[in-house]
Structure formats: structure tokens, C-alpha cells
């Protein structure tokens, strides 16, 4: 069974169709990037998988089930800036919430609690956060917070991990570090990872598949087949160019602003100025 299947899925938000006609099959244990210009509905796609946004048409199956019914099987990291520096809760407490944060009543010092403490230690080591996990989370750097939140999302060994722009607002070395970490976890733990990215370059070498959202729906495939001038031009029905820089980085030129397209207007709009994918 595939981790995710989309069949002619469509989402409307505030009277606007965000995306439509999306057909996808994502096998288990793949490392998948969701790409597309601003406003193309990348985060909305994660919310639809979680069942937080209703579908206007079509269907999505998460491990063969409707969205929202098995969210405990999904580790989710929403888009964020960072914790307020004033938040006086330690990193380990944040990780622990991933294990027992939805349980009612007071935690008792029993065998279960000891097991969970051991699991938290294991998670902290997995993401390499041992040095700062006992500091208040608000005083950790952006990259440190991101690692701790990834540990939290992995707490219950979910088979599916949804990460919304986890590299956003990190500096370049931290982007590379977190990208490598997520890729390692994907292989070592055997989890399907969907990562929404603004810039594909930090994760490009690790990816099994990219999903590119655009006007005509979505294209999905290996990075080599999707991130090409022909595929993206086809997706947008407008001239798009994918340039390869000498250091291996990709730049997508000419993708239209998502906000300016609308299903019934989409012939009226041509390409706008150059927009890199970063």
C-alpha cells in the first residue's frame, strides 16, 4: 500500500481553488519534497493530508484511510518562526509532549513514565540535541529548536512525517545539517517524509521524489524528470526555464506568481518576471 494517494483532489479556500486535479501516488519510505511558488498550496497539501482542510472534490488516502482518522500515525511540524524566548519549558519537555501531550490526567511516576523518559533520551540523541535539550526551548537557536521539534514529531514512531518548511529561517550550515538529519532519519527509521520547501537545493541530493504544484495540478516524479524546463512549462502552460548552476544548484526562472492565477482566468496570464526557487 502506498503511504499517500491523491485522486483528482481539489481544495478551495475562501472561494479560490488552491489546487485541483491532483493525482499522486507516494510509496512508503520515500523522501519527498513538495515544491511550488508562493501561494501554490504547499502547506494546504499537508493540512489536507491531516484532514484539517476539507477536499472540495476527489479523495486523499493516508495509508489507505481517510485524512484525519489516523493522525496519531503522522508526525507533523508546522511552519513557524520560533518559540518565544520567554517560554520556560525545556527541550526535553517539548519532545515529551510528542509522546504524552494528548493524554489527560497527571503523569504518574510509573513504569510507563520511565519508558517514556528513556524514549525521550533516545530521540534527543537521534537528532543530536543532547547538548541543549535541557535548556529552555526559547533559548535554543532556530536550528536547535528545529531538531528538537523533529524529535517530538518522531516520538511515537509515526510511519509518515510531514515537515512544513523546516529549513526556512535557518542559516545555510543549519539548513544543510537539518536536511542531512531528516534524510538520515528517513533511511534509518524507515519513515515516509514529505517536506515542504521553498528552496529545493539544500535537500536536492537526498530526494527520491518531488511533487511540483502548479496551475494544472501537480506533477510528481524523480527530481531529474520533474525539475526540467519541459515538465514545468507543461505544468504552467507558460514558458519556464530550469537552469543548472555550475555548483549543481537549480534555479527555476519565469514561474508565475500563484496569487495571480485563477482557474477560470488562467489563459489571461502570462509569465511574470524571473523568480528563483529560493
Amino acid at each position, binding site marked *: 500500500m502506498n503511504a499517500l494517494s491523491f485522486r483528482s483532489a481539489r481544495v478551495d479556500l475562501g472561494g479560490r481553488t488552491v489546487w485541483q486535479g491532483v493525482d499522486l501516488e507516494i510509496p512508503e519510505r520515500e523522501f519527498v519534497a513538495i515544491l511550488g511558488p508562493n501561494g501554490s498550496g504547499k502547506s494546504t497539501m499537508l493540512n489536507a493530508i*491531516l484532514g*484539517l482542510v476539507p477536499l472540495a472534490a476527489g479523495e486523499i488516502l493516508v495509508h489507505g484511510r481517510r485524512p484525519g482518522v489516523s*493522525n*496519531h500515525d*503522522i508526525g*507533523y*511540524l*508546522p511552519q*513557524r518562526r*520560533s*518559540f*518565544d*524566548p*520567554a*517560554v*520556560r*519549558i*525545556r527541550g526535553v*519537555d*517539548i519532545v515529551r*509532549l510528542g509522546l*504524552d*501531550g*494528548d*493524554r*489527560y*490526567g*497527571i*503523569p504518574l511516576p510509573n513504569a510507563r513514565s520511565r519508558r517514556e523518559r528513556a524514549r525521550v533520551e533516545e530521540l534527543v540523541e537521534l537528532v543530536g540535541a543532547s547538548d541543549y535539550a535541557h*535548556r*529552555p*526551548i*526559547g*533559548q*535554543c*537557536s*532556530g536550528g536547535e529548536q528545529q531538531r528538537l*521539534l523533529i524529535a*517530538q*514529531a518522531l516520538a511515537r514512531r509515526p510511519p509518515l512525517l510531514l515537515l512544513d518548511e523546516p529549513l526556512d529561517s535557518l542559516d545555510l550550515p543549519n539548513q544543510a545539517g537539518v536536511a542531512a538529519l531528516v534524510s538520515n532519519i528517513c533511511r534509518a527509521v524507515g519513515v515516509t517524509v514529505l517536506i515542504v520547501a521553498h528552496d529545493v537545493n539544500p535537500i536536492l541530493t537526498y530526494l527520491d521524489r518531488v511533487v511540483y504544484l502548479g496551475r494544472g495540478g501537480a506533477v510528481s516524479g524523480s527530481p531529474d524528470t520533474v525539475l526540467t524546463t519541459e515538465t514545468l512549462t507543461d505544468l504552467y502552460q507558460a514558458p519556464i526555464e530550469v537552469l543548472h548552476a555550475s555548483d549543481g544548484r537549480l534555479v527555476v526562472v519565469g514561474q508565475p506568481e500563484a496569487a495571480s492565477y485563477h482557474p477560470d482566468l488562467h489563459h489571461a496570464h502570462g509569465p511574470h518576471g524571473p523568480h528563483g526557487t529560493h
Partner: protein
Amino acid sequence: MTMAGVDLTWNIARDVNNLFAYHFMVNAFRAGTAVAVVAAVVGWFMVLREETFAGHTLSVVGFPGAAGAVWLGLSASLGFFAFCVTAALFIAALPRRTRRGFSEESAVIGTLQAFALACGLLFASLYAGFLNGVTALLFGNFLGITNGQVATLVITAAVCVVVVALVYRPLVFASVDPDVATARGIRARALSVLFLVVLGVAVAAAAQITGALLVFALLVVPAAAAQAVTARPAASLALAVGFGLAIAWIGLAIAYYSPYPVGFWISAVALAIYSAARLFARSPGRRPVPAGSRVA
């Protein structure tokens, strides 16, 4: 001259004994204890959720409630509870554009705060000969607390603490990370409404000892001091309760032996404890957590 005509001696056992010589003082300690515990527990979450502005608004709204109740011949505590809980529901119904807090509504709330205080003044002046009462409602009073009042405060405090204990982990989760909590099936919005109501009850209870304007001495200070000392949630919650009890007990004891009002002493002890906690947090030998260590 002291409140009860009892002077401080150098015999501590006798001084403590004297404290409980009168029934009014026993009741003051009973009520103070209940209020200190509930205010510390609820205040701990209020500080964590960055909802001190909501707490302040609730306390200000309690004043016209209490003054109005007295004017109508009802008990002041009924007025505190009714107005604080109603105001909590009102705040809960406000649309929230920001992720948490309600900064965009601060102008509306500020306007309402001023109007609430003014209404309290109006009700007080409608009730002739109530001038002393106004001071008590605003700045606290520990004289003449009846057994019935003590029972009410103990029960409401117990209910609030039990409710908070039941939702402890989901409430912490939804407080620090509402988006992830919601994705995990926690009803963050419902918890937020529930918490505001509990906050309203706790504020109303605390206001009956500290007065509407000095509620923060028992609501914010224990939590803020405890969170400065430790970032372990269970430890800082327990420490907050300890600080709250110390503030209430020491404040009441000093007020008993001094001619000055209890509200002043409770707030003064609160300031002392908060300062001590901050100094301890910065003391050498403790792991440094300066603001500058945070990398953006």
C-alpha cells in the same frame, strides 16, 4: 497600634500562637491558603500562555461586579465570580487573529477596562457610605471573612485545581504549540475557553483577599518567580504553589502585627520573593541562560 491590639514579642512560638488567637485570623489564613494555591496553579498556566493581559482585564472587571453586588444588597464575592466568569467568556469569544494572545484587541479591552473601573466607582457612590468598602474591593481586606466565604473559596479553588490537573498535559501542549497540538487531535480552542473560565474563577477568588487591583501579587508573581528558577514544568509548578503560600502567609502575618493594609504587605512580600528568585537565577554556579545566548 496593631490591627488586633496584639504586639509582636521576641517569642516566635507565642507570636505564631497569637496569630491564630482570633477566629477572623484563622479564617483569613484558611481563605488565603486556598486562594494562594489556586492563583499559583492557574497563574502558572497564564504566564506560560502569555495571557497576563487577559488576567489583568478579568481582575479589573471584577471590581464593578463586586461593587454592583454590594449596591444590590448581594455579597461581594458573588459579584466577583459573576463578572469575572462572564468577562472570561467574553474574552474567549473575541476573534483571535494572532496565534495566541489578543494583541489586536488591546484597544477594545483597554477601553472596556477603563469603563469597568468607572462603573465600579458609580456603583460604589450609588451605595451611600461605602467609601471604606471601595478600598477593600480594590486593595484587599482580610477582616471579617465568614466561614461560608472560606467554604466557597476552598471549594472553588479545589474545583479549579482538579480541572487544571485533568487537562494538564494537553493544556501545556496547546499553550506552547497550538498548531501541533491541534494536528494531534487536541481541541486547543475548547481548552483555551475552559482555561479562561478557570482563570476568571481564580481571579475572582484571589480578588477577595488581595482586592481587584493587587491580584497579580498572587497570580503572576509566584509563577514568574518559579519559572525564573527552573524550566522543569512539574518543579516550577510546585515551586509556584510554595511561593504563593509564602506570599499569602507572610503577608497576612505582617499585616496582623502592623497598622498598614494587607494588600501592601502581600505585594511587598511578592516583590521580595520575585527579586530573590531572579537573583538566584542569575547567581554564579547556575547554568547561565542570558538572553544573548540565543541565536536567532
